[in-house]
């Protein structure tokens, strides 16, 4: 077993526990870390159950995950459908099962299930993205949960599945397609930031420059012109999308990213407050439980999505740096382990793990420091919440299990 990964996992989960405690700490009513009426006490309970899950994962035969990948995937998809029927609506998304006071969010578990199913399918002996059927099935596996989660109204979690493109890239997906996707995203943001008029001038200018200072073959000019048209239509599309397709609260989030002051009562306020909390931490932080801003109740997701604020405020820049370093070590270690796998299945799965953790880390911290729109997804292992903690635990430990048995796999 790879003890480095286990060690990093334990470190992150403990950091999470202490910060959840700090986030809900109230000095008027002094309660212990493990008080079950506090989120930290509950998180400790989830951690205990998480340990049980780890033991189960490690004791099951490693071949189980490969053989039953589709069955697991199918089971979780069924849960995603059932939650649409029997689910409980919380804050506009119908994505929770509620049994008594206990809630479970199946979408969290769809992440590892999809990773397993993709690994299984893509490790098939002659899988190729270039083959239309393979591409189609891969996308079907990926977009089925995305669709179901969108139907629940949980756009944030659905977006997470975009992370699999990092793994696709490693497995030979066309970089051009990914580049086009990223450029579209960049244009999307630019459309929001810059007056459209200047964008069109920019397109015209760069098009003209490309034509003037290059080989003036007919083919190249046609290519450049159609590129210009494409970019222009993306801009028009984005405008239409923002005004007509996004719901008002989503529009506000996107707009608040660009200009937090535009909506000081709503999401802009959250981001501003989040930045004040982190910014006030300074170099060394205010010290454990000494934060004043994060206990301020400025965001409902104090111990879940905005947990990084507490760390930033109380542990300062060095604390944040340390957390980022731990995440980096974790991601590097997973990539290194993934590359040393002998089976394609384990490698693909390993890359999926790295991709998913990276994406959450990227979006979550980005939103707290105002570099990304507010998308409600948790910080892996740190944020409060049983579903998310268990889902990431399962995700990681299946990989640790697979890695522990890498020598037993015959090269295919």
């Amino acid at each position: 077993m790879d003890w480095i990964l286990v060690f990093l996992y334990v470190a992150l989960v403990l950091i999470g526990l202490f910060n959840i405690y700090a986030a809900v700490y109230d000095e008027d009513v002094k309660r212990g870390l493990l008080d079950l009426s506090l989120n930290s006490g509950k998180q400790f309970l989830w951690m205990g159950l998480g340990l049980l899950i780890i033991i189960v994962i490690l004791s099951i035969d490693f071949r189980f995950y490969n053989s039953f990948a589709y069955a697991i995937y199918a089971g979780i998809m069924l849960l995603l459908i059932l939650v649409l029927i029997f689910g409980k609506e919380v804050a506009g998304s119908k994505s929770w099962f509620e049994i008594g006071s206990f809630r479970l969010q199946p979408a969290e578990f769809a992440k590892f299930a999809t990773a397993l199913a993709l690994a299984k399918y893509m490790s098939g002996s002659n899988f190729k993205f270039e083959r239309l059927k393979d591409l189609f099935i891969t996308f079907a596996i990926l977009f089925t949960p995305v669709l179901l989660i969108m139907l629940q109204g949980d756009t944030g979690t659905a977006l997470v599945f975009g992370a699999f493109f990092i793994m696709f890239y490693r497995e030979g997906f066309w970089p051009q397609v990914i580049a086009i996707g990223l450029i579209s995203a960049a244009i999307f943001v630019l459309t929001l930031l810059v007056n459209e008029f200047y964008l069109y001038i920019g397109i015209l200018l760069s098009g003209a420059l490309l034509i003037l200072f290059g080989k003036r073959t007919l083919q190249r000019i046609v290519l450049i012109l159609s590129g210009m048209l494409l970019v222009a239509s993306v801009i028009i599309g984005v405008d239409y999308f923002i005004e007509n397709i996004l719901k008002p609260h989503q529009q506000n989030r996107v707009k608040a990213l660009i200009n937090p002051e535009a909506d000081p009562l709503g999401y802009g306020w959250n981001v501003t407050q989040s930045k004040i909390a982190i910014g006030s931490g300074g170099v060394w932080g205010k010290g454990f439980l000494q934060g004043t801003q994060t206990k301020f109740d400025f965001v409902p997701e104090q111990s879940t999505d905005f947990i990084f604020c507490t760390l930033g405020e109380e542990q300062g820049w060095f604390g944040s740096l340390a957390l980022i370093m731990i995440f980096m070590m974790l991601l590097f270690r997973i990539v290194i382990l993934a590359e040393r796998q002998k089976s394609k299945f384990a490698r693909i799965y390993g890359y999926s793990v790295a991709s998913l953790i990276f994406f959450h880390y990227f979006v979550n911290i980005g939103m707290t420091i105002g570099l990304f729109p507010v998308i409600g997804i948790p910080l892996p292992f740190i944020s409060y919440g049983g579903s998310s903690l268990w889902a990431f635990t399962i995700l990681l430990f299946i990989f640790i299990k697979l890695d522990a048995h890498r020598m037993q796999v015959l090269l295919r």
Partner: protein
Amino acid sequence: MNEERRYTILLVFVLVSFIYIAKLFSIQVIDSTYKQAAEYNVMQRITEYPFRGLIYDRDSNLIVYNKPVFDLMVVTREARIDDTLLFCRQIGISPDQFENNMREMKRRKGYSSLQPAVFLKMLSVEDLARFEDYLVDYPGFYIQPRILRGYALNGLANALGYVGEISRPRLDRDTTGYYRQGDYIGISGIEATYEPELRGKKGVKFKMVNVRGVEKGSFKGGRFDTLSTPGKNIVTTIDFELQKYGEYLMQGKAGAIVALEPQSGEILSLVSSPSYNPELLSGREFGKNFQRLTLDSLTPLYNRAIMSVYPPGSTFKPVQALIALQEGVLRADEQVHCPGGLVGDHSPPGYYDVRKAIQRSSNNYFYIIFRRIINQEVYPNTFMDSNVGLQKWADYMDRFGLGRPLGIDIPNEKGGKIPGPDYYDRIYGQYRWKWSTINSVSIGQGEVLTSPLQMANYTAIIANRGWYIAPHVVKSIGLDGKPREEYRQKNYVGIDSVHFDSVIDGMVMVVNEGTGFRSRLPGIQVCGKTGTSQNPHGEDHSVYIAFAPKDNPKIAISVYVQNSGQGARAAASIAGLMIEKYLTGEIKRKYMEEYALKGPFIY
């Protein structure tokens, strides 16, 4: 294959982390504004509640205004009270109440020791004046002004509606994101319909306060602050003096009065009785009073003028005559032989024309002409013929605005019922019913149900000879604005104005030589029609519709008094007095006022 791509991936990981570390360095180490905002300071977000629009009557008398009240807020963490007893004495509460409020406040959802929380709700100006000077001794405590509704004139409660704290479900449904928990919102009546206009726009101020409760100025020079915009004032169509008089006449009775200006559809008074004092639903006692009003068996919160529906009885006869005339199945001066005994009748057998039939309220006559409307012998099969005829009749009724909501600008208007072919098909089956099955409809009994508002509007249609403007209570949004678009359009009912002559003549005769004599006024020609609405549960309801003067009518009115027997008594006397009050400004017929107030209406 593709192994080298791992380096690109790792590079992306490193790059993102590097950007984050740099950004964090910039906000945590370099930029000091965030530290200033937070260091030993807590930012408070103070909501500035806008002034809610005022409500006036048609003569610009103020009805509803704003009463400033004050919530005493506390930021627990900053609060310093050296002597609790002294504090309690100064603000005028008992130490028990102090403990109680503190405990309750901390139990409230979303409570935080760092955020302002309401410690004492809705203090009056006098309360505030008493201890404002002491407040400086107590850091962490401050005053949040709030707006409550005050009533310059007591009356019109059901139409005005009330304002209250927004409910949880309502808050969840709000997609505009305007409302926050604890905000006030118009819950019924005009306050609800015109909520968007009345409420204005909240402002917000970000204030920084240090640990000792001393203000350290605004955050980032007030860049985030917004000013509140006051709501728009509203001028209603109500003549408050007439309204008050109507409420006075209706005291001790259950029922409704609706008075309209026929040419404009403006509602002059909208009386629902019993009613309540609007002050009851404004202020600290809201919860207690609301519960009491809800449990009251006389349902004072129920706006009978627009929500109660009942059979119109004989007041329904003029519209039947108009339809028959327009359909060409009846001539105005045609002498119809009424043999009597077709249906129970107060009116003797003999020959009747429209005028006499309305004056004497001949059931047999309207029984006969309703048959002519329904069975026009378009089809030889009487079942099919009745179906077509009734549909035609129901379409007229719909154009008259009977049996459907008229779209008044007060929520929860009820439609009532005009039974059409679909309705009888459901009950008896298609082509299983004919005229004789449904003939009680001819005299406004049976399944027909209308509201006092619809009856007043229908009277206005007769006064206007064929058209109406949808009745409404708001004349102008802003002090010299216009009513909403839908209250500026004429709706024609499809009856030629010539047909109204004989019907109006009949209504004149009702007043001058018939059952409507209690509404007869010296020098003003009133046109009216009495009705008695059959009530299987007890005494019949007294109903009356009228308009006046006959030429160039200024007022159309419907009166409905529950369990008071014939329309000629309670309803007609009240309608007459209302018209007298509105047109002459005073009551000369004191004996009639006495009669209307005291009865007896059931002999």
